[in-house]
């Protein structure tokens, strides 16, 4: 029985780690800029494919392939700011949130189809994965799952340090709390936006590699993590990174247990049920702060 219990916990934690990684990237941008980046899924896919290309076509070592995914994600985030977001910010800021959402839907579709045209539709194996498992008595822990959880925990720690201890992090947090006040106090808000999108893109790149190492590479790779990340953001509340991470792990464990007890098909509906319940009883999320809008 212990092995069954542990295998469910392992499945939940691994999925939770992947959800957390996708959620942090999305939540960072959403919380600090009020921008729901609908191209996040495609950026995630891009990271997975870049790592694949670096490791197979270019023959680079696995570490460099991983680095290439981070760089590609960061560059994609930077380009998204330079080409789209900065231009939208110049116009009426009251419509920025809806405009940028629509614009990034378009970018996401274009990027996904560009990947489809470049690599074809057949699923591919992500070479950046490890096989084998750690066997402790009746318990089996796959190395790939251990690696994913470890990488995600390290990245979460780095992001937390970046936001909590650096000048850039303080600027991001200040902008997230009150954009106008931060600007009046000398924070270069546009630069903060650029930095946030670059950071979010880099995280998406890593997430793409991790997700594809557990599944496979295919053009719609990022759609499912994006959907789940959106759910986590809503449950946790806007702009609350520790809350988002907690929600990601908590809901993934809940999903795994529901799948075991009630059946695999009830996993996703259980997440939706939680979202609905949270929206009814705590509209600003479990860990979010109430938002006041002046019309």
């Amino acid at each position, binding site marked *: 029985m212990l092995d069954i219990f542990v295998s469910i916990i392992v499945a939940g934690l691994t999925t939770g780690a992947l959800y957390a990684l996708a959620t942090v990237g999305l939540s960072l941008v959403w919380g600090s800029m009020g921008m729901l980046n609908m191209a996040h899924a495609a950026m995630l896919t891009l990271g997975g494919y870049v790592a694949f290309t670096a490791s197979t076509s270019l023959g680079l070592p696995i570490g460099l392939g991983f680095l290439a995914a981070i760089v590609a994600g960061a560059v994609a985030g930077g380009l998204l700011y330079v080409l789209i977001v900065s231009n939208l910010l110049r116009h009426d800021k009251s419509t920025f949130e809806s405009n940028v959402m629509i614009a990034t839907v378009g970018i996401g579709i274009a990027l996904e189809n560009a990947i489809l045209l470049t690599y074809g539709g057949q699923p591919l194996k992500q070479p950046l994965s490890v096989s084998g498992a750690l066997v402790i008595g009746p318990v089996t822990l796959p190395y790939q799952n251990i690696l994913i959880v470890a990488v995600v925990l390290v990245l979460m720690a780095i992001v937390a340090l970046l936001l909590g201890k650096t000048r850039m992090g303080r600027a991001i947090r200040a902008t997230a709390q009150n954009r106008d006040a931060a600007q009046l106090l000398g924070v270069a808000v546009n630069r903060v936006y650029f930095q946030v999108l670059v950071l979010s893109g880099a995280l998406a790149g890593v997430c793409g590699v991790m997700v594809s190492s557990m599944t*496979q590479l295919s053009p719609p790779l990022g759609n499912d993590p994006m959907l789940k990340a959106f759910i986590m953001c809503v449950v946790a509340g806007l702009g609350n990174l520790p809350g988002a991470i907690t929600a990601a792990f908590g809901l993934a464990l809940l999903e*795994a247990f529901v799948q075991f007890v009630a059946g695999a098909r009830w996993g996703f509906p259980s997440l939706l049920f939680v979202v609905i319940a949270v929206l009814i009883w705590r509209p600003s999320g479990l860990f979010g702060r109430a938002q006041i809008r002046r019309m």
Partner: protein
Amino acid sequence: MMNRRAMLQGVLGAGAAGGTLLSDLNSQARAAEDTPIPVGSALPMSGLAAADGIEFKNGLTLAAEEINAAGGILGRPIELHIEDTKEMGADLVTQAMQRLIDRHSTPVIINGYNLGTNMAEMDVAADNDVIMMHYNTLISHNEKFKTDPDRYYGSFQGDPPEYWYGPGCLNFLKNLADTGQWKAPNKKIAIIPSANEYSIVIANAIRDKAKEYGFEVSLFETVPFPTNQWGPTLAKLRQDPPAAILVTHFLPQDLAQFMVQFLQQPTNSLVYMQYGPSLPAFREIGGANINGVLYSTVIGCLPDDYAKPFREAYRAKFGPTAAYLTGSQTYDGLWMWAIAAALAGGPGEPFNKEQVAKVAAAMRRNVYRGVNGTYRADPAGQSAYCYPTQVADPSLGMPHQFLQHQDYKTDAKLVAPALYATDSFVLPPWIK
């Protein structure tokens, strides 16, 4: 001048003669015009089924080139028009088909498969009087056809319905046990469908017939579509290990992940899967983990000499990893329709019911031996007959092929039906 009897003998005689037959017909044809004949196809060229959509297009492209090289249909070349059905579903697929008819006046639409359509394609074909051939592999095609055969005269399913997977699979397992090729540790079978019509119908057919074949269903677990996190489902299987695990979900990447995760703690069970293992992605993603996996398909390019030129031409044209098993479906579909259209004196055009009905009649009458085996339309449902579960004569039914991956570096081995088998079943490496 070829008489009718000789001509029909040529058609019934064989697909091998497909190109020759068409050339003969063309040499005698007095084509009123040589304008191209538009042939439509509504395929998932993007979205989750894009991999298969691309292969379906490849199959059509190759067939069109060969038909045109043979002189076209009564001297008229074929011109392909493809519409993307994206994430599929009744709305997107019917809109795509209607665009093909409205923009290009296609007298025929040859699709691969489209998911979640509720067979609405048949209504588009009926409303516009065009031929529609598809490979959805659904019993609902037959059921819908039966409701109004006159209305749905132009709708053909190019393969047997998925229902036949159920009894076929149970029969295969029973035969393995009866012949001593496999010693089942118990009578339990676990059935794992995903949440889509194709998968559920097969799973239900297995469940409903299990007792007749001496099996007991210990687990019936429906997973989301698509799915790649198998942890909780595998935990259930390990809790009560069955003699055989029958996964009727069909996406190759998900099935490969199942094997990767299953082999971390395997149970003493045979693993049978649906369709997906026939695609290159399954081998590529699963690697050595897939050795021993059984799967079956009611349609797929046979590994015989007859299909060899097709297999070679396909990979030469579309690359060494191209999935000819998928492309072969629309390839046969286009050839079959082209011969029927030539026999009928031309393909007709939308709303020309008189001529299109002649083409449909020829498709019902002909027995076509393609690279996937034999197509003969079951008049009750206008789908292909299934051999050996539905008909005992292999020349009158499409073979339900059972294959096993014995070495992931090579193509899977055909282990049943015996008439077509190239290799014998071997016990999977994880069974002790």
